[in-house]
């Protein structure tokens, strides 16, 4: 009984891992087949940013989902989803840093000070970095109760990420509003729990 459950949870994690790696595999495939269009840097930046936000929201949905279903499996995927989201966020920021700013700290600080959407996006990166670093069981043990407190930073990070997308978009596109709405529902679901 116990064994079959651990086998199925390993299987579930593997399925989740494969699914989360798909945006990466597609990005690599498109990069080598001219599938990114005329502005490949922009396409990759948008692609990685979108998937980072989507996976962050999915990660946040796991706890409410667990309560709703009364089953433990969503919690098994939570860390992995968070780490994948952070991975795509790092790719997103790296593309910006390398191709838009060419590592210029002067340009980066200008952007951070003058562009609210950059400030919001960078805030999300800063808030999520310690969560990714302390995502291991070892850190969980070491930080004890503080671990849970620290990891509540995911909420302001998600808000910052949604603002980043909302403030960047040129015209009233539906997509960033959809993510903001999903986040609002998820935050509300926690309050009502």
């Amino acid at each position, binding site marked *: 009984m116990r064994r079959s459950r651990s086998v199925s949870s390993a299987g579930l994690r593997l399925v989740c891992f494969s699914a989360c790696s798909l945006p990466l595999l597609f990005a690599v495939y498109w990069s080598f087949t001219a599938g990114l269009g005329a*502005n490949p840097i922009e396409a990759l930046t948008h692609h990685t940013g979108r998937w980072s936000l989507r996976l962050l929201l999915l990660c946040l949905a796991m706890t409410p989902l667990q309560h709703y279903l009364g089953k433990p499996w969503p919690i098994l995927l939570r860390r992995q989803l968070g780490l994948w989201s952070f991975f795509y966020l790092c790719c997103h920021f790296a593309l910006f840093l390398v*191709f838009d700013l060419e590592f210029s700290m002067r340009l980066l600080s200008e952007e951070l000070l003058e562009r609210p959407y950059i400030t919001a996006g960078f805030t999300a990166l800063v808030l999520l970095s310690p969560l990714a670093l302390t995502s291991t069981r070892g850190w969980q043990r070491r930080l004890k109760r503080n671990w849970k407190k620290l990891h509540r930073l995911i909420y302001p990070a998600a808000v910052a990420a949604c603002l980043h997308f909302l403030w960047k978009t*040129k015209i009233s596109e539906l997509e960033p509003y959809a993510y903001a709405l999903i986040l609002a529902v998820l935050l509300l679901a926690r309050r009502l729990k």
Partner: protein
Amino acid sequence: MKISRSEITPEPLFWNRRRFLHGLGLAGVAGALGLPTRAAATPAVPSTDYAAGEKPNSFAQISQYNNFYEFGTDKRDPAKHASALTTEGWRVRVTGACSAGGDFSLEELLQRVSLEERIYRLRCVEAWSMVVPWLGFELGPLLQTFKPTPEARYVAFETAVRPKEMRGLKRSSIDWPYREGLRLDEAMHPLTFMATGLYGKPLPKQNGAPIRLVVPWKYGFKSIKSVVRIHFSSTQPKTTWNMLQPSEYGFFANVNPNHSHPRWSQARERRIGELFKRDTLMFNGYADAVASLYEGMDLRRYF
């Protein structure tokens, strides 16, 4: 579109001519001096390089990365969906403060002008840019044929509205038709161009077939596509992006690296086909020719 096959420049010939120019070193020298290069070489259509010898973007890049919200907001939407547009029997209505306006077929208008090729830089407000070999004609002489009256101080333009052909019109956030406008002296400026073709071929629909404006020193959104109306007025016309977000998009919309969009920098741009960004030039590099139009104006206020 009535351009006979013999008049247009096929892509290979185009490249031969460019190589020829480079061979003579003319394009580079004239470009460095900020002078346009006149090439006599090809049959029928004269070509002028206004991009300082820079290599034009490929036809695929120019025709597959477009902003034309009537066909969708994604850059690839226009190439996918603009084929639905009917350009046969295209008419342009010329109204307002002019004594020889009317309702003209495109052919009637083209009879009044002579076609030429011009290679211009195009800078989008979204901080990307291209180099485009347009086929078309100077707008000023055409406008003169409509005999604008002394009250005419501005020229307004409108894009076609075809709900059955333009799937993007369903989006109600924009008050269609797409509108643009220029001060009359801007419209009469020798750099202001109407394009009917690209790379010697008729204009692809996603690029604004059959006739579009090209104002190379302004952000791309000023260069209105698929024009069906030209209106002379005494007051500054309403323009689409300015109506949507007046704090972000001004009436003038001159390319200006020193005046950033409220949400992003305009100091640099990514040339399509390049990985890194390059510095944006004042008036998109056409300052010598157009800066005098704005003498004494505060460009931070009239952005």
